[in-house]
């Protein structure tokens, strides 16, 4: 009677050991091990790529925002110039200056893009170009709106309101 419970306990212990789920009795095969090492490396590359692409996407978004604002502002020009005559020449001269400056910036970038030493070097150049152009478009359209404002005093308010509203959103 005394030994019977002991045997039962030992048998239970054996049975418990066999079904113990915590012991890793299966090892990953070689390809899984390789994958585990290679994957993070690929992921890291992908992260660098994604960060770079994110930068490109973000600065593109900033430019689009400025563009939309400038477009809104230019809708106000129509109101002001409906009554204006002489202002158009001054306006066109300003537009010429803007086109010239933007074209110069673009050609400088085209040239510089050929001298880039690496992808990150190129992306830095491109980001700088985009940032400068974004700033330039904002200033150019503020100046164009200013010209419109000075030309036609009576239609000042709608332009001023529109420009203030537009560039508040963008900058």
């Amino acid at each position, binding site marked *: 009677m005394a030994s019977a419970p002991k045997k039962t306990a030992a048998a239970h212990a054996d049975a418990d050991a066999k079904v113990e789920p915590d012991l890793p009795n299966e090892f990953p095969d070689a390809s899984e091990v390789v994958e585990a090492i290679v994957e993070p490396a690929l992921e890291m590359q992908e992260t660098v*790529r994604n960060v*770079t*692409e994110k930068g*490109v996407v973000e*600065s*593109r978004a900033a*430019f689009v925002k400025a*563009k939309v604002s*400038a*477009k809104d502002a*230019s*809708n106000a*020009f*129509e109101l002001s*110039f*409906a009554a*204006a*005559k*002489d*202002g*158009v*020449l001054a*306006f*066109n*001269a300003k*537009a*010429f200056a*803007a*086109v*010239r400056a*933007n*074209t*110069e910036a*673009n*050609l400088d*970038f*085209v*040239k510089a*893009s*050929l*001298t*880039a*030493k*690496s*992808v990150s*070097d*190129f*992306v830095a150049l*491109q980001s700088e*170009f*985009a940032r400068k*152009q*974004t700033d*330039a*478009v904002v200033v*150019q*359209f503020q100046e*164009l709106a200013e010209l419109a404002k000075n030309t036609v005093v009576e239609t000042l308010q709608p332009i001023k309101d529109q420009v203030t509203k537009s560039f508040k959103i963008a900058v």
Partner: protein
Amino acid sequence: MTASLFEVPNDLRDFAERSVEQARKAFEGFLAVAQRTAGVVGDTPGATGVKSVAAHVLNNTEHNVNAAFDLASKLVRAKDPQEVFALQSEYLKSQLAALQSQAQEFGAVIQKSVTQGSR
């Protein structure tokens, strides 16, 4: 290896630089002529024309900035130097062509802005 990705043969670089300088000079010459013409023609301008001029400035700038963005996006994903070379060549070619047509269109838009009011 990253550096070699951007190695552009000297001949091509020289050619590209010459092309860019040529385009710059041509564009400046064109602008000077268009500006003179606009000054002579215009004293009875219209409103719509001015709006088109503003839109033109904006659209051109947008196009050029976007082209640079597109190139950046493609270069980031370029697999080898050949692809980089092809992308850069394509960009150079399309930008020089774009600048030419932008100059022509801008001249036309300016012309229209100053003659429209007199009709």
